[in-house]
């Protein structure tokens, strides 16, 4: 294990800030987390991982209908970014969203029960992973159409500006969605209107059936904002402190009214695109190498233990708590009743007509 610590080289992505626009934000430094902060990052990432593993099992048992896209491997991205946001900020993403929900503070129970389509779910069991939503937590979905969350994310930023708040909008999308046309319409308007939005490309290096390098003419995705004069920064998304460092630098910059920024988080997913993707477009060895040498949770664990302030026993105790929380969520998701038929007529129109 000690040897693995050094091997981050193959994922330490050199970042090149895009300086098309003047002023561009300075290149972010890695965040120096306190032990408590690091422990909290670890807890959140581990919760997402254990939650997703259990979601995968429930899917395998036929308890989750439709598709199921797991976030396993990418946990550092959402945990690092979310930790630098404040109340009132809005978050929006696509359908690989269970981790985002947990990170915004939605309970594991309400998230899992939504996956199983039960009335205890966050959308009362009517939405599933593609229609999860909680205004209370600043989480605006959970979207089923690839890339469609990006213009909506720009719209949320417009609302913040229009209402005169200093809140920002964070719009996450994947490397596959980065090739959708509406993303660029949103970029244009966001820069033109100087909207407080952070576009985050979670580049896990594979879209539904192929690698980003085979499917993208410009595969350095942080440069995708260039022709709109949106500065872009590439970040090692496998390191929660690098992610937090970038969020720490960029979010206040955007909050202060300097316009949108594009962050490309280089990350990796261990599972297929969805549960029905055997991921034949990459080798098992590649996945194993990433798990072995670049895993965000293992790296954080090492940092905690090397710091000397946290013991292996404490981490085991924490893991036990997380397992119990996930087990409780899974039980709830299987025992909560299905939505009543009358729910067919609710949440369709605002007010009554």
């Amino acid at each position, binding site marked *: 294990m000690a040897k693995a610590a050094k091997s981050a080289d193959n994922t330490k992505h050199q970042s090149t800030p895009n300086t098309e626009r003047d002023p561009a934000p300075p290149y972010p430094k890695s965040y120096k987390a306190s032990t408590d902060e690091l422990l909290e990052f670890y807890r959140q990432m581990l919760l997402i991982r254990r939650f997703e593993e259990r979601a995968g099992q429930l899917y395998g048992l036929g308890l989750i209908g439709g598709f199921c896209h797991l976030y396993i491997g990418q946990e550092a991205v959402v945990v690092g970014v979310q930790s630098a946001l404040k109340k009132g900020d809005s978050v929006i993403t696509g359908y690989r969203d269970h981790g985002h929900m947990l990170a915004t503070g939605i309970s594991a129970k309400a998230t899992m029960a939504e996956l199983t389509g039960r009335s205890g779910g966050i959308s009362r069991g009517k939405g599933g992973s593609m229609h999860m939503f909680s205004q209370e937590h600043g989480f605006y979905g959970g979207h089923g159409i690839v890339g469609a969350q990006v213009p909506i994310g720009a719209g949320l930023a417009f609302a913040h500006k229009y209402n005169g708040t200093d809140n920002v909008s964070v719009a996450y999308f994947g490397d596959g969605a980065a090739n959708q046309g509406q993303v660029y319409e949103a970029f244009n308007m966001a820069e033109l209107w100087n909207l407080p939005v952070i576009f985050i490309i979670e580049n896990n290096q594979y879209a539904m059936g192929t690698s980003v390098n085979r499917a993208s003419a410009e595969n350095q995705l942080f440069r995708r904002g260039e022709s709109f004069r949106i500065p872009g920064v590439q970040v090692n998304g496998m390191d929660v402190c690098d992610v937090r460092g970038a969020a720490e630098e960029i979010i206040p910059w955007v909050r202060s009214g300097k316009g949108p920024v594009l962050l490309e988080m280089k990350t990796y997913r261990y599972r297929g695109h969805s549960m029905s993707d055997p991921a034949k477009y990459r080798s098992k060895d590649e996945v194993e190498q990433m*798990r*072995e040498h670049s895993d965000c949770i293992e790296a954080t664990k090492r940092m905690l233990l090397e710091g000397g302030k946290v013991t292996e026993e404490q981490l085991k105790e924490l893991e036990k708590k997380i397992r119990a929380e996930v087990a409780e969520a899974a039980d709830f998701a299987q025992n909560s009743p299905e939505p009543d038929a009358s729910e067919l007529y609710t949440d369709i129109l605002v007010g009554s007509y």
Partner: protein
Amino acid sequence: MATEIFLPAMSPTMEEGTLAKWLVAEGDTVKAGQVIAEIETDKATMELESDESGTVLELLIAASGNAVKVGTPIAMMGEAGES
């Protein structure tokens, strides 16, 4: 904490599967993502990966036996020395 590994549905239509081959033995340590068994489904032979790292405590279903229903516990995983 010992946990059960269930036979998962490996395709939307799979209702049962046959354990074609165990690739681990009781007492082996496995890493998360490691292929631990080959499962014959209604469509093909698929590889079953372990979600977690740990020790194989017990194999509950013999290889090349009868088909078992999706959701049947097929192995116990945990830490060495647990039961």
